[in-house]
């Protein structure tokens, strides 16, 4: 049973270097991903309106240009064919082709403004979930206090995501809902959406944030009915009931440790977890240290204290995010990774 929980949270197939690969929902639209909310559909209709207007106007201009080139071809230079006209000015024409696009542009601007205001105004009755961006993972903190590397939301409810970053700029991007907002260190930003369909879709980091920017993916799961509340309850209950090793394994997954610390011995941005336990590491300062309970604990809470030689000082602190019980679990889990 506990294995089932751990596995259900390890939903993704892993790429060679351990990145997660979420999947886009199927869509009929050639240009756009599936639209998962009413607002997304409204934005899409504007997108398609601009698309068709663009296709028509580009075709008109290019066909006109091609036809003129063919119709008024100059032939060989020595023929000295002269232009049929030297007319170089028409105020009427200039006014027409300035004013006509103006009507189109005003329409599109107003339409876009309407949806933009809606995108940026979260309804008062929203469920609030905190998202934290850090190199190179997202964590989501639920009203119940549960923390997860994936976003779970109830179908048909307004969901407001409060976003922050603990290091550099990131950007929370959920194509399915046409929402995107930068995670800016030192302040909160927010976005909201109302998911219409149960299912899963990808979450990306859209603002370049360094080495593994492209691995900073996650997934949103929309639960039908009371599935969301049930999921939250289950998570807490099951996490509570997990034996330490499996709790540790789950934490390593939830907090995205694998983005930098591989489990298979490969060198990543940080040392691999495989065979780490009881190893003697050389630190950047030249000292050596035995990887024991205290070292692991200190590395999680104060990662800059003892950086292993040859690795960049990149790791963020998890102080306040992991309870003692969870850290104990991680220690026990590391002991198993021989």
């Amino acid at each position, binding site marked *: 049973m506990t294995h089932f929980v751990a596995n259900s949270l390890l939903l993704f197939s892993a790429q060679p270097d351990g990145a997660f690969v979420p999947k886009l929902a199927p869509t009929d639209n050639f240009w756009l991903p599936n639209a998962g909310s009413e607002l997304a559909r409204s934005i899409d209709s504007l997108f398609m309106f601009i698309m068709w207007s663009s296709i028509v106007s580009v075709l008109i201009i290019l066909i006109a240009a091609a036809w003129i080139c063919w119709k008024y071809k100059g032939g060989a230079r020595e023929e000295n064919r002269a232009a049929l006209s030297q007319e170089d000015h028409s105020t009427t024409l200039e006014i027409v082709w300035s004013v006509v696009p103006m009507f189109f542009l005003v329409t599109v*601007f107003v339409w*876009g403004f309407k949806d933009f205001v809606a995108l940026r105004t979260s309804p008062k009755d929203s469920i609030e979930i905190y998202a934290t961006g850090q190199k190179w993972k997202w964590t989501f903190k639920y009203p119940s206090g549960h923390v997860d590397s994936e976003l779970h939301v109830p179908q048909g409810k307004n969901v407001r995501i409060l976003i922050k970053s603990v290091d550099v700029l990131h950007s929370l991007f959920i194509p399915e809902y046409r929402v995107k907002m930068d995670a800016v260190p030192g302040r909160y930003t927010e976005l909201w959406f109302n998911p219409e369909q149960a299912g899963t879709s990808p979450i990306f980091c859209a603002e370049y944030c360094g*080495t593994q920017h492209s691995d900073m993916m996650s997934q949103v799961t929309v639960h039908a009915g009371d599935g969301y509340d049930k999921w939250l309850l289950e998570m807490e209950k099951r996490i509570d009931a997990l034996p330490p090793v499996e709790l540790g394994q789950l934490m390593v997954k939830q907090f995205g440790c694998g983005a930098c610390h591989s489990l298979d011995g490969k060198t990543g941005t940080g040392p691999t977890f495989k065979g780490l336990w009881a190893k003697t590491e050389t630190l950047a300062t030249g000292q050596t240290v035995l990887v024991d309970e205290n070292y692991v604990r200190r590395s999680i809470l104060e990662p800059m204290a003892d950086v292993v030689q040859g690795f960049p000082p990149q790791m963020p602190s998890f102080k306040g995010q992991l309870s003692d019980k969870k850290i104990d679990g991680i220690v026990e889990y590391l002991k198993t990774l021989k």
Partner: protein
Amino acid sequence: MAAPGTTIDENFITHEKGLLSWLTTLDHKRIGVMYLMCVLGAFLLGGTAALVVRTELWTPGPTIISHDVYNQAFTLHGAAMVFLVIIPGIPAALGNIVLPLMLGAKDVAFPRLNLASWYLWVIGALFLIASLVTNAADTGWTFYTPYSTTTTTSVIPAVFGAFILGFSSIFTGLNFMTTIHKLRPPGMTWFRMPLFLWALYSTAVMQVLATPVLGITLLMLIVERAVGIGIFDPKLGGDPVLFQHFFWFYSHPAVYIMIVPAFGVVSEIFPVFSRKRVFGYKFIALSSVAIAILGFLVWGHHMFTSGQSVVASTVFSAITFLIAIPTAIKVFNWVTTMYKGAVHLETPMIYSLGFLWVFTIGGVTGMFLSVMSTDIHLHDTYFVVAHFHYVMMGGAITALLGGLHYWWPKMSGRMYNEKLGQVSSLIVLFGLNLTFFPQFIMGSRGMPRRYYNYLPEFQEMHQLSTIGAYMMGLGFVITAWYLIVSLKKGRIAPANPWGGHTLEWHCSSPPPYYNFHDAPVITEGPYEYADWTYDKKIGGYVRKGQ
């Protein structure tokens, strides 16, 4: 001055001999040629980096290089193409050669400043390359904080390089502005100026007014990184979004610094190759000025997802829409210029028509991004990458190539192989579309930019794009080949191979050291072709009665 239509022995290339005579020259044409060689060299560097990036993206996982090298490669590509190639490309290389000639002047107003600007370019480029050989910056060309102040790569040399290149750009701008104000020949009123000069003038204004802001910003970034004074990093009490405001306050005008000169080049080529006066001269001229002014007021449209307020975003979006109008006016006027003309489809004209094709697509896709609601979805995806490559590569580089072929006989004194020119221009244009059109599709489907790994769903589009990139590369290799060959084996160029009427076509090819013996007196506009007829014997145009 020799008789028009013929070439004389003494010219700016043969005037003095030896490397030192080039490195110490004050002649605008020689400085322009040196700029051109450097810019094309940097284009090779940036293009190679682009091919490395595109090759890596052949598969969704690792292909040929690591995460970090990939990030360094796209940073190098962006920084080299923006700061070393496109910004100086048309103004400093082609503009330097052509601007004084078009004015019938002997040189620019400040020849020494002109040479200094070239040396600054070289020094700036060396700093960028220094960053490359030590531990290449991996910040992207935008240097966003706090990533750029915390990454372990050598950001400072790269940023300092961009800082110095900024001064090179300011020097060129100052020089061109002064030259156009003070050195116009008798009779050349503002509205008798060739449109290329209007474009260079508008560009110069932007270079002089916007570039100092970039300089200050980059200096602040260096100070924060080197000394730890908090300006942009919230850990030190700074504001990372402030950097974006400063950066785009320069870098949005900078995209017009890149594209407005391109407008100028095609505004020359369309009438000459249609044997017809340019249509809507004043509208084309003044729309460059309008774009230069409005270009300063739209920087916030790069920041719709930054947490910037709704009110600010709305104002920036509205002004962005206004820029669409002068841009559309230009496109309509170029098409109408050809109407009832006698259209000759040689290489410069193929590039100009290619410009019309690609730039129009780049322009209309800008609408998706200036509309706030659709931009939220498209921001920082491949849609944006495709859009600005259609404008920068499809616009600025295509026009640079058009201008290069148009003025090649003038600057080198030789004709290039026209057949190869036509073939390679078509290869480049089709390659360009194959590279960047799939990027629109995957971008709107949700593919974020600057991704080393990506979802397998996007692989087909990435592969099409990579094939297109190699196709373009092939086109450029052919172009480089026949241009180099033409220097030795090309037919001797006549003074006026295309039948232009702007003043550079009135002197021999290549022009004599002092361009014109006497300042020409201007009595008519620059697009009067009735007096020029093609003479088969010399393979160029001669003016009636001469």
